[in-house]
């Protein structure tokens, strides 16, 4: 927020900060871009004020002229026009200079962004799907690869390098608090560098129109201390505990026998579907269905009962279930931590 704070405050009252805001500047890239934004904001504001002042004076002068010499037509004497020609050249020159300055500022920032990477960043792969995010933490050791969905955990102070892919249409990953956005284009591989500076809970949202539920394709981003991050990471490596209670056990059976397992995977169980979010630790995520609902047992049940009512058009079908079956599934899903 720094220097632009007063102006931004005027512009947007108190609401500018927040968990999904350009003003957050909670990452190296976001801060660099934020600094550039300040430069542009102040420069263009000054230009605008100049134009307004010039216009206002012209209106006043024009009005006076009109009183003095009503009815006449034609231009002022050539002498007077010459001054205006000089003015025009000066104005165009000043415009060019200012623009050159802004262009250089842009290039400098762009360079800084390109160099903001880190020697050993955290390697993550994010794959866009209609309308959810598949997230994979890469590791040379296969058993240390973490697969999750719709959430991103990052350690503060360490760079992360995200490889972006899409399997269907174009999506765009945008975590405004941390950095600019980057498109996920089928058939291409793009990447995005992040470097969070402080801990916090942020929201990212798909920024390229991708069809029916583009509006509900969010990603929860948690930046935590390295220790917290390591704890989370290790927990992700462990398969969820085997269900114990009666209801949860029944839910587990349903999950394996109804269609669920053909789409979803749960580590340590036969369920290994790859076309839908990995559910191994779904209950530990903040939200379900790509930021649509907070993760509670009721919401999980509401979702499974009728996904199309919660998020019309999404790719999970309504599986016919009785009340009891639903409750069992709810109980089971809740154990997936």
């Amino acid at each position, binding site marked *: 927020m720094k220097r632009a704070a007063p102006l931004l405050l005027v512009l947007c009252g108190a609401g500018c900060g*927040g968990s999904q805001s350009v003003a957050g500047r909670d990452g190296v890239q976001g801060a660099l871009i934020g600094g550039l934004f300040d430069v542009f904001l102040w420069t263009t504001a000054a230009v605008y004020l100049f134009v307004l002042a010039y216009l206002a004076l012209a209106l006043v002068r024009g009005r006076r002229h009109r009183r003095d010499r009503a009815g006449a*037509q034609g231009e002022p004497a050539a002498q007077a026009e010459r001054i205006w020609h000089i003015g025009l050249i000066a104005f165009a020159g000043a415009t060019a200079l200012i623009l050159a300055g802004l262009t250089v500022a*842009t290039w400098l920032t762009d360079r800084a962004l390109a160099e903001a990477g880190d020697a050993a960043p955290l390697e993550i792969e994010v794959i866009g799907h209609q309308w959810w995010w598949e997230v994979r933490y890469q590791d040379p050791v296969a058993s240390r690869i973490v697969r999750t969905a719709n959430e991103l955990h990052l350690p503060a102070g360490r760079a992360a390098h995200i490889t972006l892919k899409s399997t269907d249409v174009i999506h765009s990953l945008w975590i405004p608090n941390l950095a600019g956005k980057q498109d996920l284009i*089928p058939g291409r591989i*793009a990447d995005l560098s992040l470097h969070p500076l402080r801990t916090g809970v942020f929201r990212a949202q798909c920024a390229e129109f991708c069809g029916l539920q*583009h509006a509900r394709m969010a990603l929860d981003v948690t930046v935590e201390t390295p220790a917290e991050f390591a704890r989370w990471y290790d927990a992700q490596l462990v398969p969820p505990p085997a269900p114990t209670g009666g209801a949860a056990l029944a839910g587990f059976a349903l999950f394996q026998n109804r269609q669920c397992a053909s789409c979803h995977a749960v580590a340590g169980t036969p369920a290994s579907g790859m076309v839908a979010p990995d559910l191994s630790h779904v209950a530990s995520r903040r939200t379900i269905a790509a930021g649509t609902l907070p993760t509670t047992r009721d919401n999980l049940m509401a979702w499974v009962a009728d996904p199309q009512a919660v998020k019309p058009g999404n790719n999970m079908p309504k599986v016919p279930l009785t009340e009891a079956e639903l409750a069992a599934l709810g109980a089971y899903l809740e154990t997936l931590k």
Partner: protein
Amino acid sequence: MTAKKKKPREYLRDGPDFTGAPLHEKLSETWRDGPGLIGWIKSVDHKSIGKRYLVTAMVFLALGGVLAALMRLQLSGAEQEIIGPDRYNQIFTMHGTTMMFLFAVPVMDAMAIYLVPLMLGTRNTAFPRLNAFSYWMYLAGGSLLWVAFVLNIGPDAGWFSYTPLSGPEYSLGKRIDVWAQMVTFTEVAALAVAVSLTATILKKRAPGMTLARMPIFVWSILVVSLMVIFSMPSVATASGMLLSDRLVGTQFYNSYEYGDSLLWQHLFWFFGHPEVYIIFLPAAGFVSEIVQAYTGRRTFGYTAIVLALCATGLLAFGLWVHHMFTTGLPRLGYAFYTAASMAVAIPAGIQIFCWIATIWTGRPRFMVPLLWVIGFIVTFVIGGLSGVMLASVPLDLQVHDTYFVVAHFHYVLIGGAVFPLLGAITYWFPKFAGRLMSERLGRIGFWLSFLSFHATFFPMHIVGLQGMPRRVYTYPAGMGWETFNLISSIGAVVFAASVALFAVNMLLSLRKGERAADNPWGAPGLEWATASPPAPYNFAHIPIVADNSPLWNEERPVAYGLRVEDREMIVTTAVEAWPDVREPSPEPTAWPLIAALATTVLFVASIFTPWALVIGAPPVAAALVAWFWPKRHHEGEPVIE
């Protein structure tokens, strides 16, 4: 030579001995549209076609505006479900498509078709039947889109329909085919107008009107017509490729078969960026005309403004990648597009400077059109400056595809093009209708529009920075977006009311407005030398021009000797505008309509089967042959050796 040598016949011609009322009588008879509906359909008069175009474009503005109101209703609060995602996606696609393809470009065409021949001192456009054809194609394309929308097969992939979302795999049904074919219709229409206007401007100017004496508005239309010629083939080809991907299984945009979805983006924006200046430059032309009429002095910096228009037109073709900053193309390339995008601010700034200088050194009369111009400057510059922000790659990485961009383009489209348009309609209304628009309603309307516009669109900058993406049918509560969206929605209602008030003013003034003199504003352009509204033949004698404010001179030199009982016009040389040839001008005819109908059948049928291209071609060819087949009374005079 076998053509029979006829004895030179004496034709009735205008001249010192044949002028005034009897001439008016004869010329009107020659140039008038026929009576009744048939006459209306067959008209090739640029004024009839221009008015038709204008009314149709305004209807599309209203339709697009109603859709905007629906979107604002849905977005007025968080988590609203008044409109479902499927309908919402159709609505915003229809809104953008309607506004860009069916309102903004055609409305500028409409004004140009009506005004350019008058400003040039001629009697019709160079290719009047092509103009007529163009209108029917436009009407057909717009109708196709809206009929489809009503039938729930309205397109739903946004006004730029990115592949692969719009491709065969992810957009089933006919929605996108309708969109792509609508694009073809409107491109054919716009290209036809561009050809006709270019030829008109280069070859139909009044004797003595050198290029350097052309009204600035005509310059802007010349630049825009050339831009149309070089940009629209790109989107027409691209949408043809999209259709064939969808219908006959080509693989242009399929990255799994050696195609590439970014190819679509390049081809679309190679058209799409010039498109926005195709909308803006005529509006800048309006401003230059209005400013001089209401300050009583010629627009300051004629040469600078003309050069600025040309520079914008050229630069416009080197900017398209600034819509693709987030696609991950090479950084070095991006740096070039940043610099180029920033550079367009120079010609824009030059024009702004000149307009204000004109007001400063002139004697402004603050009538409604000038108010719109002032409102335009105050508003457009904000949009231009936010454009400069978007041109910076790092900033665009943040705000691309957010409401910040939505704010930018409504500032430049509405502030930069619609405001001048409303001013221009008020300004030229006496020419169109023979009556003045109400000054009082105009003033109320202006202030209402101006204030509510900013209330609607300014907050969008802020929600954009706060992270609200565009094209979302709903948004969660607690993001800090609700208040701003509510303000936008309230503003939009008032803004729509103010536009409706403008329409009401037009309709009332059409019937009850004060009768207008030929030149009610004391303006310098040739169009004001005609009657209000102009006689069917525009000018009884062809004016001769000696500078770029002909009506501010005492002298009224004219050329004479054109045939009066046949439609005849002069062709002048392209640069100096020397009278060169007398050529006949086409009579009214229904063939453009028939050709357009045949083409419509072909285009619409080709949505369903590629064979339509084969089966539908002969009727089109037949209609075109009939169109160009010489008519008896078109026989020219014997060649003068």
